[in-house]
């Protein structure tokens, strides 16, 4: 299963085997087109169904029905003609639809007729004082350990932040017998009012009842502090305490583990490196690709489905996968669409799946104080650049993230801006009194994931290389 692709080119290459990628690949294959599904993880499922075929957590109630629902989609993709390669890291994609992929420490190139990116979401940076200390990690990382290995915290643990994933993780940790001492809810009080007009749609959404039940389950076991407006981690080389303020209350509590989460944002790196145009989304506070209603991007032949197209959740991701796949089939082999459900069916499903999203986006819109740090708080972990360093660079003429690189090397480390990009854009926008759209984002470059020099050196030679004319 972990070998190089069998062919040099495919009708459709799908990147990412989460909900959107699995649905897209299965649909394209159903229409009879050659399909390659490349996925970075050890098994299919993406983040939401991580380790669905291998998790040691077999008690079904622990991970919940939504998790196990992914098994059907995995089975559908596996029983189709899709060539699925796991542990395949796509490190390059360009507008010629050539894909550089690393599999088992060997890289090769494949050509696609169409590409469907289903690279999902990343956790939003949460740059509070002390967030880089060992002992502070993201909720997503904790959930990965839980799903893959059944590991849960057993020392003094604080969970801080907001959003559906935070409550899901808390519930899962508790069901597996893990320890949580306190939940610090950073949801801004005014967000409840702002979200009210969307509440009716939300109450009719599939999330409502489940979300409410989960919060009730967690609150029965863990003290929850709401309205948290300040948050800091501290310790000498290792997390020791968490300090927070909520209203007039201020407390410093001991902790060995602090899990942070304030929502997810599209993982834009591969799409941006391929030249796909993005715009700033003022509600979700992130960069989203500019797409038509079939998920097609500004680059001919590249479509995006799933949370990478804008956060919509797993159900919406599945349907967006179907839509992008059907559109790809329409473009490559129109007659083959007869085998697929009509587009109208998919669009109706999408409308259902997206119901209530505006409520969640408004309610869980993270506060400025937790997005835009100040002073000595680290922004760029790779190069240890603080908020103050960035403001100093702005003062001497850095106008945007790309100019900032020249002064501070932000975004130039191994994470390629994944952990600092949004913070840098918003911080510079605030400092220069511009919109994030005007400030822009890092120009991202392949390899979007580092590859070793040895691996690049081992790329098979072509005829032209052999005949390469050297400079006199």
């Amino acid at each position, binding site marked *: 299963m972990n070998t190089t692709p069998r062919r040099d080119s495919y009708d459709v290459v799908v990147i990412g085997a989460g909900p959107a990628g699995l649905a897209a690949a299965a649909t394209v294959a159903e229409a009879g087109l050659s399909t390659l599904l490349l996925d970075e993880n050890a098994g299919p499922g993406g983040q939401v169904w991580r380790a669905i075929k291998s998790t040691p957590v077999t008690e079904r109630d622990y991970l919940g029905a939504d998790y196990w629902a992914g098994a059907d989609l995995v089975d559908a993709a596996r029983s189709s003609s899709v060539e699925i390669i796991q542990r395949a890291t796509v490190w*390059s994609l360009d507008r010629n639809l050539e894909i550089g992929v690393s599999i088992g420490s060997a890289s090769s*190139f494949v050509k696609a007729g169409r590409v469907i990116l289903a690279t999902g979401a990343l956790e939003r940076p949460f740059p509070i004082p002390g967030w880089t200390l060992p002992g502070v990690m993201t909720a997503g990382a904790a959930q990965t350990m839980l799903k893959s290995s059944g590991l849960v915290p057993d020392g003094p643990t604080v969970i801080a932040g907001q959003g559906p994933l935070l409550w899901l993780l808390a519930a899962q940790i508790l069901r597996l017998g893990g320890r949580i001492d306190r939940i610090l809810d950073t949801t801004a009080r005014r967000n409840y009012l702002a979200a009210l007009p969307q509440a009716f749609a939300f109450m009719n959404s599939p999330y409502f009842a489940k979300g409410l039940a989960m919060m009730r389950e967690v609150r029965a076991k863990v003290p929850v502090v709401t309205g948290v407006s300040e948050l800091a981690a501290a310790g000498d080389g290792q997390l020791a305490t968490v300090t927070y303020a909520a209203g007039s209350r201020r407390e410093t509590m001991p902790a060995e583990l602090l899990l942070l989460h304030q929502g997810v944002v599209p993982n834009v790196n591969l799409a941006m490196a391929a030249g796909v145009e993005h715009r700033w989304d003022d509600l979700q506070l992130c960069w989203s690709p500019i797409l038509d209603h079939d998920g097609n991007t500004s680059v001919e032949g590249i479509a995006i489905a799933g949370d990478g197209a804008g956060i919509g959740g797993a159900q919406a991701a599945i349907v967006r996968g179907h839509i992008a796949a059907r559109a790809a089939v329409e473009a490559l082999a129109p007659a083959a669409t007869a085998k697929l459900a009509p587009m109208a069916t998919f669009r109706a499903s999408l409308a259902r799946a997206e119901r209530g999203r505006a409520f969640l986006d408004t309610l869980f819109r993270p506060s400025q104080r937790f997005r835009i740090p100040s002073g000595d708080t680290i922004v760029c972990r790779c190069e240890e650049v603080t908020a103050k360093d960035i403001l100093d660079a702005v003062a001497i003429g850095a106008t945007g993230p790309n100019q900032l690189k*020249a002064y501070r090397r932000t975004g130039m480390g191994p994470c390629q801006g994944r952990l600092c990009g949004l913070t840098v854009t918003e911080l510079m926008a605030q400092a220069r009194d511009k919109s994030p759209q005007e400030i822009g984002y890092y120009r991202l*470059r392949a*390899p979007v994931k580092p590859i070793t020099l040895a691996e690049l050196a081992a*790329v098979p030679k072509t005829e032209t290389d052999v005949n390469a004319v050297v400079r006199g």
Partner: protein
Amino acid sequence: MTKLADAIIVGGGIHGCSTALHMCLAGMKPVLIEKDYAGRHASGVNAGGVRQLARHVAEIPLSIRSMGIWERIEELVDDACGFESHGQVLVAENDAEFDTCRARVAELNALGFTHEELIDGPELRRLVPAVAESCPGGVVSRRDGAADPARTTTAFRRKAAALGATVREGVAATNIRKQDGLWRVDVGADTYAAPVLVNAAGAWAGRIAAALGEPVPVETVAPMLMITSRVPHFIDPVVILRGRKLSFKQFANGTVLIGGGHLATPDQDRNETVLDWRSLAVSARTVFELFPVMRSATIVRAWAGIEARTRDELPVLGPSARHSGLYHQFGFSLHGFQLGPGAGAVMTELIVNGGTQTRIGDLGIDRFHPFAP
């Protein structure tokens, strides 16, 4: 509204910014127009080589002039520009290449240039300990080095603006024309007028020259570079190979920049390039063979900047052969960064004094138009 200036410079690369700064030092008030931002293209993303080594004889005087400015760069622009002088070394991988090196140094010495020095195998390995035993020697230019290109270009722009240059970024210069004895250029809703126009528009300069009736054989190219993760310090000078396309530099933070002139496909109108990974793989193989210490390093990022390359790979520097008040400063053909500080000084001398002590006669645009009126 028409605004008057002493000169209009089109292009905010190292060349346009250097010329703007030197004009200010000479008491002029120029306006610099950059369609993106200063250093957005080749000037900000090149390998940063500050190199006199292995240059065409026609541009050596300009390179030497520039080197003098580099060595006092902080006095000029109030920023050290990341300039470090650990020399540049050209490595001969076999005896035939070493013979070529010997002949080259002899030729330069005969012309009175002494910056290139032939070195034998032991001296080569003293300078570059990691180089293979089989390499018989090479050439060193000891005053050479490297700087941070984006920081340098930005520093020139900042100092020029501080001394009174008007810097317009983010809007292209359009409708370039001469009217009533003045050069006029539209920038958005504004029009600038000046007796002098400097065409320093890099990859876009060929279009400007052609539109003004002075076409030059020039193409748009995008040389690729890649940078690695940090590896233990193992090399000080910049290393280039005599026989293969490779240049190599380790920064103080341990990262290694690999270049050498393999080209990406430029898309000038989109400000984009499409990288050619198979060519980058050739560079990776060369490094793999020559420097075993690099084998476990990871490639963190690769990119290419867009610039102009002339048919003879020499820049166009000097007055127009056709229009009074028009000056060209472009076509630096993958090796213009080091020349930037000197070229700005020389250009200003040409404009202010009508001549320069620095020998640039072979770089004029008239070399492409021998029979022009």
